[in-house]
């Protein structure tokens, strides 16, 4: 008994460490990718100086942010001012733990899942962590004791509460089809070819669009980046943050992007499923490759949209959330449940 306990704890710790390392690496290189792609969209080169193709730029940025002066402000509510970035980054990193990235395999008789925690309410855990994540931004804006920060935080609160509804409801269609809240079950429900994925086979294309729009709003990305709209609010909720504390908000935003991409991949695009062929070693690696490719597609989409679309006006944001996305999401739930009810 103690032996299995030890193996379980050791495997979980190892998995967490590996996933955390990979995740932060992906986050760092998403920033690089964003600077490169947005640069090319705007007919510039993006970073080119540090390393080949500017590939070492994330490292240089990290060192710079670590060494920068952490400006101590006198007017802030210090405990909450420090808690806010920790909360934002901590919760962003937590949510990756329930996402399955591949089939399970066995090492020396012990089953190893390509997932830190296979809980059967995984999707609810994700929504819960997302809904708590608002506090990082809200507290940052409030504790900074600055009007720009406060305005940014107020916008973030209203926006995230509004779009959370559509985000949750857009996933309900898939849940009805699968009959489970477990992300692993949702992936296993889908086949290996693109037309067997939920977005086509389940008729969830509309839900996919709703999820995408709501997810952009939840992660405060353009065209929904009003909480940090730099042309009107300096930098919004993180105006008063400097050095590593600012970097933590930055990392939290990109980690959330990766999580959203992972969830969209898992729920709508068949997770790690894809055509598997060739010799055994290739077969073992291909699912992971498909998963990463789909996630990368979403990250690219994020950057592409950022380079293309202007920001919403605040009333447009609210009208879009409540008058377009929410009714669409409810209609999708109704139609999906009707089809499932007639089909069985």
């Amino acid at each position, binding site marked *: 008994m103690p032996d299995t306990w030890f193996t379980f704890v050791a495997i979980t710790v190892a998995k967490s460490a590996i996933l955390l390392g990979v995740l932060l690496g992906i986050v760092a290189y998403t920033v690089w990718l964003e600077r490169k792609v947005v640069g090319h969209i705007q007919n510039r080169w993006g970073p080119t100086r540090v390393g080949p193709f500017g590939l070492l730029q994330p490292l240089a940025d990290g060192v710079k942010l670590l060494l920068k002066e952490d400006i101590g402000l006198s007017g802030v509510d210090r405990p*909450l001012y420090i808690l806010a970035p920790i909360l934002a980054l901590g919760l962003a990193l937590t949510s990756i733990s329930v996402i399955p990235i591949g089939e399970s395999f066995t090492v020396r008789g012990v089953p190893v899942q390509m997932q830190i925690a296979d809980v059967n309410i995984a999707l*609810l855990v994700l929504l819960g962590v997302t809904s*708590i994540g608002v506090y990082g931004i809200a*507290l940052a804006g409030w504790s900074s004791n600055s009007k720009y920060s406060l305005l940014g935080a107020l916008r973030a609160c209203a926006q995230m509460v509004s779009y959370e509804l559509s985000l949750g409801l857009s996933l309900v269609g898939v849940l009805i089809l699968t009959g489970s809240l477990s992300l692993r079950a949702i992936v296993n429900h889908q086949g290996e070819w693109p037309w067997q994925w939920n977005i086509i086979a389940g008729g969830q294309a509309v839900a996919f669009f709703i999820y995408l729009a709501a997810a952009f709003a939840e992660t405060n990305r353009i065209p929904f980046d009003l909480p940090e709209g730099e042309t009107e609010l300096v930098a919004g909720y993180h105006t008063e943050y400097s050095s590593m504390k600012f970097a933590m908000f930055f990392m939290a935003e990109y980690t959330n992007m990766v999580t959203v991409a992972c969830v969209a991949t898992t729920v709508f695009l068949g997770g790690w499923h894809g055509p598997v062929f060739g010799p055994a070693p290739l077969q073992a690696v291909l699912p992971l490759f498909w998963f990463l490719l789909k996630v990368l597609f979403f990250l690219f989409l994020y950057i592409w949209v950022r380079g293309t679309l202007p920001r919403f006006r605040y009333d447009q944001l609210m009208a879009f959330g409540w008058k377009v996305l929410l009714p669409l999401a409810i209609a999708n739930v109704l139609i999906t449940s009707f089809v499932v009810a007639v089909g069985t």
Partner: protein
Amino acid sequence: MLHQVLFFFFAAVCVAGALNLLFQRHPINSALSLIVVMGSLAVLYLLLGAEFVAAIQVIVYAGAIMVLFIFVIMLLNAGEEEHAGGSRVAAVLGYPAVALLVGLAAWSVVRSSGSAGLKLGGFVGSTEGIGYLLFRGFLLPFEVTSVLILIAIMGAVVLARKED
């Protein structure tokens, strides 16, 4: 064993959060303490095996409702509260009432301790089970409650509407 340790830890966090809620002077600190209480309650539900209720507790209470609390506090820019000396009625009626409540709770716990009561992790509150309960056994109360909430929303809209 692990269940017991977790239960007592989060029960203590819950009580500490509730006390902190009362003793803090700033409304935002009180609201944050309330979030801690909600979160530890969710863990207690989880320990009982009611995973769906735990998740909903976090999403709805700790996530949505408390965000609105914080939102309002930030919007009003509420400052520190002054503590009043306390009213005489509260002193005379409050302490006996608290003693009575604690006594009742303790009595009911002691009385039912021998029987097969709730066990930590003992029963399964699955999503499916709760769905069946809500849409089969308690369909009417469930729907009536939702209409009640709708009426409350409409009331708020009517009250907040500007006169033409």
